[in-house]
């Protein structure tokens, strides 16, 4: 029996086992056995990847082989920070690792602000504006489409407005002027979430079809 056959039998057993154990119920032993094995295996693989493809190439190689265009000084700092971060695993000494988490959090905050501003807000605003570009032609359908997209985008944004007006003895309400737009925004949000939910069903359905195809194909191979 070749290694491939062993791996194929393993894959077949695991796929069929997961689908059947899910139907039986998550509270019962079959599902628990497979799920816990899976959690451990995934963690083991991630640990291997972290060591071989993060720590070794990015922390150790620049320090040991400075000839590859890295300066040793800049290679020492991350090593020290990494050593401090290990103290987070010990409850009493976790304060020592605050500097390392500070670097991670600071860098992440900068990236998400920059990415959100330049990558989404400006680009999406430009996209909403370019729909009205006369060079794209002025067929009636295109103008209706552009107005429809503009109305959908603005009403969705207005729905998410948080500030309200507090009247004595009453709950905080939306300003009157924005109520209609907010209602329209709810309509667009419901459509978008419906499309996304259908997309999720489509994705999982495609995965299920592919897995069932693998099971049937494997059985047919064994039968022949």
């Amino acid at each position: 029996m070749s290694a491939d056959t062993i791996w194929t039998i393993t894959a077949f057993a695991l796929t069929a086992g997961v689908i059947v154990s899910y139907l039986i119920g998550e509270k019962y032993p079959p599902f628990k056995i497979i799920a816990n094995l899976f959690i451990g295996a995934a963690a083991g693989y991630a640990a291997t990847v972290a060591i071989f493809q993060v720590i070794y190439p990015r922390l150790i190689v620049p320090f040991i082989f400075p000839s590859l265009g890295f300066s040793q000084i800049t290679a020492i700092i991350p090593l020290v920070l990494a050593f401090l971060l290990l103290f987070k695993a010990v409850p009493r000494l976790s304060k020592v690792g605050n500097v390392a988490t500070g670097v991670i959090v600071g860098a992440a905050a900068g990236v998400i602000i920059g990415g959100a501003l330049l990558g989404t807000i400006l680009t999406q605003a430009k996209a909403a504006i370019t729909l009205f570009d006369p060079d794209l032609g002025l067929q009636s359908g295109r103008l209706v489409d552009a107005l429809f997209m503009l109305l959908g985008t603005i009403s969705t944004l207005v729905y998410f407005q948080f500030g309200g007006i507090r009247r004595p003895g009453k709950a905080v309400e939306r300003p009157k002027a924005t109520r209609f737009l907010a209602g329209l925004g709810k309509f667009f949000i419901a459509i978008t979430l419906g499309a996304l939910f259908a997309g999720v069903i489509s994705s999982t359905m495609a995965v299920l079809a592919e897995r069932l195809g693998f099971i049937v194909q494997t059985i047919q191979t064994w039968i022949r």
Partner: protein
Amino acid sequence: MPFKNRTGSTSKNADSPSQETPDWLKKIREKSHLEKPATPPLGAFGEAENRQFGETEKPDEIPQWLKELQKTESPVPDEPEKSEVDWITRLHEILPETPRSDSPSTTLYSDEELAAMAAAARKLDEFNRVIEEQASTQPLGVPPEPAPTDFHLESSSPAAPESPVELEGSISSFKPEQNQPDSANPEDITRDSHIEKEPVHIELKPTGNTEESVPWMQTPVMAEPEPVSIDTTPSEPVEPQPNSFDISSDKSETQSLESGIPAEENLPTEKKKSFFSSLFRKDETDSSEDAEDEPEDESGQNDEAAARTEEKPEPLIPESVLQPQYNRSVEYSGRLDISESQKASIHLLKSMLMGEIQPPAPTATQSKISGRMLRLCIGILLLIVMLFPLATGFMLTDQQALFSPGVVSMRTAVNALPENSPFLVITDFEPAFAGELKAAAIGVIDNLMMKNLNLSVVSTVPTGPALARDLITSVRQAAFAYPPEKISYLGYLPGGTTGMKDFIHNPRQALPLLDTGRYAWTYPATQDVFSINDYAGVLIITENTETGRAWIEQLHGNMADKPLLMVVSAQSAPLMRPYLDSKQLNGLIGGRVEGAMYDRIMEAPARSPVITASYQAGMLVVAVLIILGGIFGLFHGLFSSRSSSSKENWYVS
């Protein structure tokens, strides 16, 4: 009227003096004629009230033998010669609560006086009996009328006094201002002031940790209500009742009624007397026939007392009958003169009881079995329908005939790529979606291979490199496998968006090695690449909207004129299309179906059509179930009485 004296035996009319006068009585009469004291005439009724409470007359004016008598008996009225009718109306002056016991009483008692003293003693017995009856006949749910003073009993509010000293202070002198809740929160104070006028059962919970607190500190908790007994020592702490108004079926009516009467030992001395006086006065008006002749006093108490006298105690209401009563609209007996605040109190108490009596509305019991059974049935149905085309090869539809805009622009972009140039492939999908994305991306990668491109493969997902290798090796049969030197697997790029930014800024520094550990940038496929702009284009394969968006945001501006292509799963397609409209993406394939469209548009043979047929059969089943569910939901909404709480879409556990 037959009358029981203290010993319980009955005697004839107490008012007619006996025929033979005993010797000791003759001596007293002789003495009283010799020494007639000068006593100030009692002024109008109100004056007696002005004397400061607790102030006593000069001790030497009272003969010794009379003091003992006063300790046990009620004092003798000063004015024996007043007319017969007056002694009844002034009877309250000689009641135990007014300190008349110290009034100068050197005068010998006349027959009438002694008769009056005997009557007073009888009255005292009668009063004890009435108290017990009162405890058992007070109609349920109607709190005893508050003593006519603005007597403030703090409700069982959680703000129990904090420190032991405070605790002691609250036991010994229960003054209204002292019992203002400590919390400075105005809301509490207004809430307490609302309860102020209503005598609610006191339940002072032991403060802080019971073990540590000194035993005497533990404030008596009125738990199981016993018959009222005058006992000044704090009672033993008893198992606190969760809620003193909890009228559970196994408690007898009597106990629940008594719980409404403030615990005797908690009341300070002057309060006790005013409380009893109100009862006594009520009692007195009960028995007197000519109550209407009572002189009108300033505070109108007699009217109130008169109104209360006609109130016949309602018969005990059995527990089982209680429940529907509370749904009846509230009507008050016409003879009762109930003030607005009392009506509010009644309403408040009834609403509290309503909550207690009515069993909590059963939350919609979530039938778990039906949920799991439904899942089993739908699961089996789905599996059967999807396995049928796989087993029989049955095809639901022909090949795709219409193409989405993303597929068309993808073909255009791939055809425009220069031959034999470096190209970056980013495989950011999880193992779970490998099936779908392999079907969606296999056509595009096949075309890239047809163009003889040098592929660099990167992934920001730990399992990405392994899945990338599996995807690329499955495009072509082993015999026509793509030359390995034209594919460099750069491996895992950690750090998500920051890792992308790091790689885009300097690829060589971000990923120095191949996933096999060899130095990457001397490999044939990547030796010509020094910066991100050296790639002819980028293909991102991901199932995740955020990852796709992050790559577009980071690549924005760095590869302005190079094509950015994307293959996403069906769940992310709706959110990626806006980037296609804004020309940030030059090609977009969303899911298995658009992958099949791409194969069709490139005139390539359909890949795994039976799996596509199985997928379409499953999607039809889902569509039918959504329609059936909608119809069922419509009927479910129409017929089931949707209670108001169902508006809040959450379950109380």
